[in-house]
C-alpha cells in the first residue's frame, strides 16, 4: 500500500527548482534525467496580479503502477511494505517499456548507464528515517512528505482558514 505523499504548498512554492537540483545531486542523475520536475504554468491574472502555478511532478507511486506491469524483466518493483515503486538497476535492460507505459512520463533515461532511473522517494533516506531530498532541500519549505490522509487534512485546514471570516 502506498504510504507516502508529497504535498506541495502552492502559496510557498517560488518555482526556484531547488527540489530538482537537490534530487539530481542526491541521485546523481545525469544530464537530461530529472526524477522530479517543477512545471511552471501561467502567468494568468488573478485579482489584478499575474500569478504562477508551479506544478510539482515527482513519481506518484501508483497503487497499480503501469510501469511495473510493462517491465519485462522484473526490474521495476513496487515495494510491498510501503508502496514505493523503484528500479532494481541490475535487472533493467534499458528496453524503455516503462517510459512508454507511464501516463505521466515519470521514468527517466540514464544516458550514462543505458538504463532507466526514477523517483523512489529517495528510498535509502526513507529507510534511515529521513525524507526525500526534494522535500528536505526545498528553499521555502513548500514540500511536505506526509501520508495521503494527512495531505487531505492539510488541504482542508488551509481551505478552512482561507474562507473563515475570522482572519488572524
Amino acid at each position: 500500500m502506498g504510504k507516502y505523499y508529497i504535498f506541495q504548498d502552492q502559496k510557498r512554492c517560488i518555482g526556484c527548482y531547488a527540489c530538482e537540483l537537490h534530487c539530481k545531486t542526491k541521485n546523481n542523475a545525469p544530464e537530461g534525467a530529472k526524477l522530479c520536475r517543477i512545471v511552471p504554468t501561467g502567468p494568468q491574472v488573478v485579482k489584478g496580479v499575474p500569478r504562477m502555478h508551479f506544478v510539482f511532478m515527482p513519481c506518484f507511486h501508483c497503487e497499480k503502477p503501469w510501469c511495473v506491469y510493462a517491465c519485462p524483466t522484473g526490474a521495476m518493483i513496487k515495494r510491498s511494505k510501503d508502496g514505493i515503486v523503484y528500479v532494481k538497476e541490475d535487472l533493467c535492460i534499458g528496453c524503455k517499456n516503462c517510459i512508454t507505459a507511464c501516463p505521466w512520463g515519470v521514468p527517466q533515461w540514464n544516458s550514462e548507464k543505458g538504463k532507466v532511473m526514477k523517483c523512489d522517494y529517495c528510498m535509502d533516506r526513507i529507510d534511515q528515517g529521513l525524507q526525500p531530498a526534494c522535500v528536505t532541500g526545498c528553499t521555502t519549505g513548500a514540500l511536505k512528505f506526509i501520508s495521503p490522509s494527512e495531505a487531505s487534512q492539510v488541504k482542508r485546514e488551509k481551505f478552512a482558514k482561507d474562507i473563515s471570516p475570522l482572519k488572524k
Partner: protein
Amino acid sequence: MGSKRVYSICAMCTGRCPIVVDVEDNEVEHIWGNPYLLGGYNLCPRGAAGKTLLNDSERPKTPLIRDGERGSGKWRSVSWDEALDYVADNLKKVIDNYGAKSVVLSDRGGAITEFEKAFIAAIGSPNYFNHHATCSNSIHNAHLSVAGLARNGVTYDYKNAKYLVSFGRNLLESLVTGEAKNVIDMIENGGKLVQVDVRWNYTAAKADRFFMINPGTDYALALALIHVIIRDSLYDVDFVQRWTVGFDELSNFVKPYTPEFAEKETGISAADIVKLAHDVGNAKPSVIFHLGWMTAWYSNDFYLRRAICSLNALLGTYEAKGGLIINKGPGSLGKPLKSLLSQIPKSNEPRFDGCGTKYPHLSGQWGLAQELASVLLTDEPYPVRAYIAFRHDPLASLPDPDYIRSAYKKLDLLVSIDINFSETGWFSDVILPEDTYLERTDHVIARNGSKPGYILRQAAVQRRFDTRPRSWIFKELANRLGVGQYFPYNNIEELIAWQLDGTGYSLEDFNEKGYIDLVDKPIMWDRVDGLKFKTPSGKIEFISKKLEDVGVPSFIPYEKPIELKPGRFRLVTSKCALHTQGRTTSNNKLLNEYVSENHIYIHEDRANELGIKEGDLLEVENEGEKQHIKSKLTKYIHPDVAFMLHGFGDDVPLRTRSYGRGASDIRLQKGLAKVAIGGNCPYTECTVSIKKIK
C-alpha cells in the same frame, strides 16, 4: 547522510547562506542549509549545485603564468613558488618605481575579506575596493548619509512585517535562502508584499499588489509617498520627533510631489499611491521599505535610496518588530574578534579612486571599481601599475568591458586570484587558483544582527587540484614583500585561535552547529533612548550637513529619465534563482543544464511592430556593439523595457558549457563605467535597438 557532517558557509553567490555538508570518503555527498539557522535543511538550487563545482576540471588547477599576449589564452603551468615569486618580484618593481599606492586590489566584498585587506594595507597602499560600484554603492552611501548605517547595517524582520514594499528587489528570484523563506513566511502570516518593478517576475507573482512603474520614475513614487504620509499625518510622530533632523525641510521639499504629479510620471494611479501610503501608515512601524540590493540603476539613484531610507524613518520602522533591526556585532558585547587589519598602520596617501577627495561624500570602504580604467588611462591622481583582482571579475561585471580591458593594458602586472577562469583572469598575467569553499577554511566572521555571534567557513573535503586557500596565498605574498609579520600564523587553526583570543571560545565550539551565539535572546535597543545612528547628530538626517558641507545637496528635485528615442528600449537586467553573478554559476554543469543561455524579454506589442516572434534570433545594438540573443515575448513587461539575465556571453573558451552562449548585457552598456552621485554605475541608462536577424 554521509559519515561526516561539516558546518560551513556557501559561496555559490554572495548570500553566504549557512550550510551543512554531508561527506563520505572525501566526497561531498550533499549540501544542505544549516538547520539551526534556517529552520530546516532548505537551500537554494545554486547552493545544492555547489557539489558539482568541487570536481569540475574546467577551473584553474595549478598556478598559471601567461605565455603569450594578454588574453591570448596561452598559459604555462607553474609551481606555487614560481608564481608567487613572479607576482612578488613584479609588485616590488611597481612599488620601487611608483610607490605602494600604485598597487590596487579588489574583491567582491562581504564579510570574509580580512586577508586581502590586510595584504594591501600591509604593503602600504590605501587602495582596496570591491565590486559594489556595480551593485550596492548607491544604497550604501545613501544609508550612511541618512542613518550612519551601512547598506547591510540592518536586518529585515520579514517574518513579523505587516507590509513589505520592494522597489525592484527581486527577493524570490535573485534570492538568498533564508530571506526568501522568511518573505514567504511573512505572506503566510498575512503580511502584504507590494512589488514595484518595470517587469513582472516571480516576486511580483507572489505580491499582494504589483505596480508596473514607468522606467526611471521610482523617485517620483517615493517622493509622492512621503508627501502623502506627511500630508495625511500618517508618520510616527514620536519617532520622527525623537530620532530625525530636517523634518520641516523634508516636508517643504515634497510639497510639489503630489500623488497626481506622480501618477503622470510613474503611470501608477494617484488613488493607488494614496492607498499605499495609508496602508503602510496604518501598519507602521511593522513595515519594511526594502532599501535595495543591486542598486546600480540610474544617475539619481542616491536620492531614490535616500528617499526610501526616509520612508522607513518616517514610519519609525528602525528597531521595530517587523521593521529594520539595527545590527549589533560581537564588539557591542565586549567580545570582538581580533582583526589582522587593525594591527596594520593605515596609509595616509589619498585613494586612487577619489573617495574622500574628488568624491568627498563617498565612502572609501567599498571604493569605486569603475574609476580604475580612467585612472590608468590618465595617470590622475597618480599612476597605478599593478592590480590584484581577488574573486572579483570586473571584466565580466563592469559596463563596457572592452574599454576597461583597453585600460588594463597599461598595467605592468594584473593578477587574478580565483576559483574560476574569470574574464579578468583570462586577461591577466598570472592566475593563482584558490581552493573552493568546500576545500578551505576561512577566518572567523562576526555574525552581526539582533543575535550577535560568530560563524565560520570550514573545509569539508581535501583539495582536488594544486590550489591553495586565501589565508596561505596572501601570507606567502606578504612574506615575499617583507611584511609577513602582519600575518601572525602558520596555519588557519592558529589564526582562528588568535582571532578568538579573549572571547572564551575556540575552534571546537563551531563543531556542533557551525556558529556561536553570544546571546540567547535577540537584542532590541530601546526606541526611546537606545538607538545608535552613526551620523554626526546621532539621528536620522533628512538634512545632512555633512553632505551639504561638501556641496552635495540633501534633496534634489525629481527629473524625468533621459528621453527614450523612438524604436529603442531601456535595457534592464537581473538574476534568477539558478544563476547569480554568471562566472560562479553559468558554467556549473548542473545549473547550465537548466539555464544555458539568456533570452531577451520584450512586450508582445513591440515585438509585433518589429515582426518578432517567440524564439527568433535577434540583434541587440547600442553604439555599434551588437549582441545576438533569442527572444521571449510577454504581456507583463513595460513596453519601453527589454530585459535579459545578467552574466551571459562568456568569452573564456575553457569554460565549454557557457562559452559563447547568450548575450552580454555589459557589452551593450557603452559609456556607463562612470561614477554617479551614489558611487554606482548607472547601468539602467543603457538603451538598445532590437531587430530580427534575417
